[in-house]
């Protein structure tokens, strides 16, 4: 089978996971497109090496995760990290405050990803956004299944510790205002 055809088949096979990774991590169509372009170009350039890899699909997905992270790093520096971009996120209008709160959490998670080591970051992305089994994550990271599992566990623990002050403390002022609005007094006077 010619190289290009083999590569295209592989990419088609992992396309849904690539799309999910880029979109979930970046939440912005143009950035996601750029990340996917970057990933595909890297795959193209490194195809000879990739095809010799024990698990080419996992390797490609790792490249995709790295491309999305690189783009996210730039995005967070250059723009807001919030994924709420008008026209990009179809559910924005649908759910208002709840959506905003959820996006806050996700923005915090995106930021927290940078606190992880490179392998931990790749492992957690491959596990949750690419649904890869640990054995494949290990193959992509060049380690065993058990080590891959440890990377994910440590990543989650680290994320939890980084997010401890963010997720659970979201919008206390808003909560206060909401509570004020619910108070009997305000109901009487509204």
């Amino acid at each position: 089978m010619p190289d290009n055809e083999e590569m295209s088949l592989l990419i088609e096979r992992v396309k849904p996971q690539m799309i999910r990774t880029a979109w979930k991590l970046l939440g912005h169509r143009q950035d996601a497109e750029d990340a996917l372009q970057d990933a595909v170009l890297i795959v193209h350039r490194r195809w000879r090496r990739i095809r010799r890899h024990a698990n080419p699909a996992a390797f490609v997905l790792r490249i995709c995760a790295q491309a999305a992270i690189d783009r996210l790093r730039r995005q967070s520096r250059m723009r807001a990290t919030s994924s709420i971009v008008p026209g990009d996120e179809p559910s924005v209008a649908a759910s208002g405050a709840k959506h905003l709160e959820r996006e806050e959490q996700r923005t915090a998670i995106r930021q927290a990803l940078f606190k992880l080591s490179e392998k931990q970051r790749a492992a957690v992305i491959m596990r949750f956004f690419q649904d890869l089994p640990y054995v494949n994550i290990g193959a992509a990271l060049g380690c065993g299944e058990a080590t891959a599992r440890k990377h994910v566990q440590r990543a989650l623990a680290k994320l939890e510790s980084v997010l401890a002050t963010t997720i659970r403390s979201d919008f206390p002022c808003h909560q206060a205002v909401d509570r004020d609005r619910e108070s009997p007094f305000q109901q009487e006077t509204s």
Partner: protein
Amino acid sequence: MGNSESKTSEIERLLSDWSQEPIDPTVERQLGDVISAPLPSRVRATGTRRAARFWFSATAAAMILLAVGVIWLLPRPQSAWAQVVSAVKARPWMRLTLQKPSEGEPAAKEFSEAVLWFRGDGTVAASQWANLSAWLDLVENEAWTFDSKRGVVRRGRNEPGNDSQYEDMLCLRMLSVLLRRFEIGDAGNVPARLTLVETQEDEVVLDGQRWSQFSFAFKMDSSCPDRLTLVLQVDPKTRCPVRMDVLDEGGPPMHFTIDYPENGPDDIYALGAPASTAIVDTLDLERYFEPRDLPEPTDFQATVLLCLPSKPLAWIIDATRYRSEGGTTNAAYADADQVYQLANRVYYEDYGPNKTPAASWWADEVAKLDFEPPNETTNGPHRMCYCSYGRPEDYDSVTVADDSIEGLEGMILLRGPEMCVWLDPQRDMIVRRMDSLSHEDGAIHATQVDEVERGPNGNWFAIQWRGGRVEELGDPLKEHGPGDVASTLSIAVVKFVEE
């Protein structure tokens, strides 16, 4: 241990929910098209990337002339090129002007006028291209940019990126990154990512005149297949370059003429930015939106009394008891009927020897009431000053102002289109007031912390705060807001638990 596992489960749940959310089919199709597109169109997919090449080429070309380090990189023509560098440095300014491509020559789709400036002493670089201008202070590492379409002057940091540490990085992505960076003016760092792979010095005859010609071939990094060659023609008498050609293997060539004016742009305003243009100081703004580490939690107990601003402590609406231990805070709400009866006692002045019941009296009385079972919560006096106000979608929409409003004199105001936040520069930049537009009811809700107290671990606790509605962002918080909705006053009696 169990606690730790449940926390991890929470993160796992968040990530799983996030991952499983369906993607809009239109977006999915568009992204799928990107992946499935034939390779050549991927490479040339967007105008911004072509523009990135332009910027990279032009910037790298011009910067090289002044970078002393380049001299060290030159193996053979070092002495000759060193003379050129010296000659350029002796001039006040060097100006490079992009020329229109000749008839029949491959060219970018749209020609944009572009001019680059470099001060001879190497302290300033500037550029003007179409609607974008940049002025870089290479000493202070600051970048000023002006986008005439947006009418905004932006001040930012001229900082090196950390992208180069990733070996997987593509040349194409770097170009794109450089373009974006250059918008905030990172030209000063461009040479650091370049590798000079070939140099050549020739003598050429053009228009009957002899010129020294220097050619420098660069690669972006080891992974980039394309070369970028700069050809500079130098006047043998003055040793100053007078023409520069940028030959890009992946794009059309560009030609610049070079002259050396006495004066150059002294600031961004000399590049066309009107003096009245609003400044977005991202250098200053970024620090306000950086995630902050909270101090270690302090164990405390607190009673928060919700009252009317017009009659503080003369009538309470609600009472809440907070207990915080080891970073976990529980809140319990007092029985509403008992609170009402207690308020009645005050109304009939049945509160003992004190003429006016103090907050501590209320706290003691409230402590005797029945409370709902406690729930874990984060909404309490310990969190009021640490509101998460997120990050703006676009810094252009945020300004730093010094508008003073009653009780918030000397605060730093971050004003956005739907939100205002006042930060206290004297107290670790804690949030002293936040106004935000609620998409739920269309009202602007404001919360203002009037009194604070510092805990043993350095945390700031809100002791007194008000909440209510305002007509416009930043309006004073009155007893009654729009819609005649009453504001509320919260008074916290906090006791810190000593270790």
